[in-house]
């Protein structure tokens, strides 16, 4: 019978069994390079200016313009590493309030999201910077694409072989803005029941975020979507301009817009909140606990300048609303005071 003897294997023997020395060297080098590459760069302020990571949470519809603005900003400040995360405006706010994820700047498609969820516990101020408008967007492959126009879309979209998509009012400002636009359209075009007809049709094509609708339209799953004009321009899709009385663009029609209301989910399941129609305003804030305030302030100034950030916003289909009045002028950082009105 064989005698089993127990012995320690030395580390060298074990490694020798599994790794030839050359291979160990390769693996060690690889690990060192890997960790060096991916190590966080920190948020120190270098002598030359601002540096480090800059974390921006933003609405889905700001993805394209913000990417361009970040690229331009990086040319002036190559030391800053801009990290952007797109999500629904409410989901972005939740990442800050509930998950405690570090964030420098939060930009929302609806300024009320920041006012309701972040001020005053996580932020002190809220600067409005851009507008947008609702429109009907479609691709060339859409059914009846050649016939549809601003006058007949309400009939064409109701046809049984036409499919349209919209976003979830409970999750996304674009969703409740769509419902508001439909209510305003019912009054404007004098077609009673229009809103309900639209809300009940094609419910299977509802998606949580407005930019999810792009997947639907680009795969031909739907023919038309209700989304912002800026997104249509950025993705080179065709769109129908809707009258200012219904498209939530023009502050001159604010009282008209205020006549419609939408109920969405409140703070707890079962609770409801009422949103009133108003002109669409995008806003942003710098979080009180922002890890890299210096870079955030510089970026904010860049974003709000007429010939830099706002020029890019305009090119991407979003008009500027700078400067807008704020209620708490004294809380606005000094560098950004020129961009607001008292």
């Amino acid at each position, binding site marked *: 019978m064989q005698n089993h003897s*127990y012995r*320690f*294997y030395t580390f060298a023997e074990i490694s020798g069994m599994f790794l030839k020395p050359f291979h160990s060297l390769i693996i060690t080098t690889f690990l060192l390079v890997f960790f060096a590459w991916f190590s966080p760069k920190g948020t120190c302020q270098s002598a030359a200016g601002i540096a480090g990571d800059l974390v921006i949470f933003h609405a889905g519809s700001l993805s394209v313009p913000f990417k361009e603005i970040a690229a331009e900003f990086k040319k002036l400040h190559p030391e800053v590493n801009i990290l952007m995360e797109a*999500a*629904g405006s*409410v*989901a972005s706010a*939740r990442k800050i*309030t*509930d*998950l405690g994820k570090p964030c420098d700047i939060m930009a929302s498609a609806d300024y009320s999201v920041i006012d309701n969820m972040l001020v005053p516990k996580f932020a002190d101020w809220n600067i409005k910077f851009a507008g947008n408008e609702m429109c009907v967007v479609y691709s060339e492959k859409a059914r009846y694409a050649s016939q549809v126009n601003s006058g007949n879309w309400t009939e064409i979209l109701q046809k049984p072989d036409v*499919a349209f998509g919209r976003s*979830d009012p*409970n*999750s996304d400002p674009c969703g409740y803005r769509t419902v508001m636009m439909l209510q305003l359209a019912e009054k404007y075009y004098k077609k009673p029941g229009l809103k309900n007809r639209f809300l009940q049709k094609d*419910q*299977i*094509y*509802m*998606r*949580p975020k407005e930019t*999810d609708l792009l*997947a*639907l339209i680009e*795969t*031909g*799953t739907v023919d038309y979507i209700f989304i912002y004009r800026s997104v249509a321009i950025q993705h080179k899709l065709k769109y129908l301009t809707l009258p200012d009385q219904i498209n939530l663009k023009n502050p001159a029609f604010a009282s008209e817009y205020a006549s419609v209301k939408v109920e969405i*989910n409140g*703070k*707890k*399941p079962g609770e409801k909140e009422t949103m009133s129609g108003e002109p669409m305003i995008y806003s942003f804030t710098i979080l009180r606990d922002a890890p890299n305030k210096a870079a955030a302030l510089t970026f904010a100034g860049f974003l709000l300048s007429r010939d830099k950030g706002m020029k890019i916003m305009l090119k991407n289909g979003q008009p500027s609303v700078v400067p807008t009045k704020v209620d708490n002028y004294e809380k606005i950082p000094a560098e950004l005071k020129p961009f607001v009105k008292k």
Partner: protein
Amino acid sequence: MKRLSPFQLAITLAAALILLFIVAPLAGMFVATSPSDLFSTARDAEVQQSIRLTIWISLAATVFFAIAAIPLAYLLARKDFPLKSLVAGIIDLPVVIPHSAAGIAILGFVSRDSVVGKMGSAIGLNFVGHPAGIAVAMAFVSLPFLINAARDGFSGVPVRLEKAALTLGASPARVFFTISLPLAWRSIVSGLILMFARGMSEFGAVIMVAYHPMITPVLIYERFGAFGLQYAQPVSVLFILISLSVFIALRLLARNKKQKTAADA
């Protein structure tokens, strides 16, 4: 007294660390959820419906696609053909494709204007926004697990047993059902459970194809976005507890037969 060698201690330590790695985040979530939140969530009809729906759709998808996937696994185990490695690689693809990309691909595959979509419309079925579409998305990302497990199971069945049966006059079909399948069954069941589990948790691919009806991963995401962590976590905890009991039950069922025969032997 049993004396453990250093090697045995080392592997026990490693095992404990890995187990801790899996348990710790889940335990954190369980601890953060109060029993009252959990009970009120369990009574919520929307949550109940969502969990039921998720389990049923994944179950149906697993069973439906298994009918074709198991024969494929058998072929891969038994036959050699040109480009076999390519086929094996393609089968593993759904695991690495980013979920949103998979969802968009599936959307294109089943939308109204596609071949599959048109076939569906012919029988009045639109995959988008329908449990059938959800099942397709779930199956797409989870099939590799079943195919690989089943293939390994069939590979473990000695070919000479099959050949012996053939020489004794059994048809290939009879050989498959009475020799190959029963002997590979344990691996196949493991693969089925894995496919079922993976399908249930899919989010990125499913949400592209269907937001409503809401499977539980989508519901958790929606609740988190709308109401916050306090309302999303209980749903997660509930879903995990129910899934855990289902898996334990399935594994016990799969084991019982083996244990019995081993005890009898």
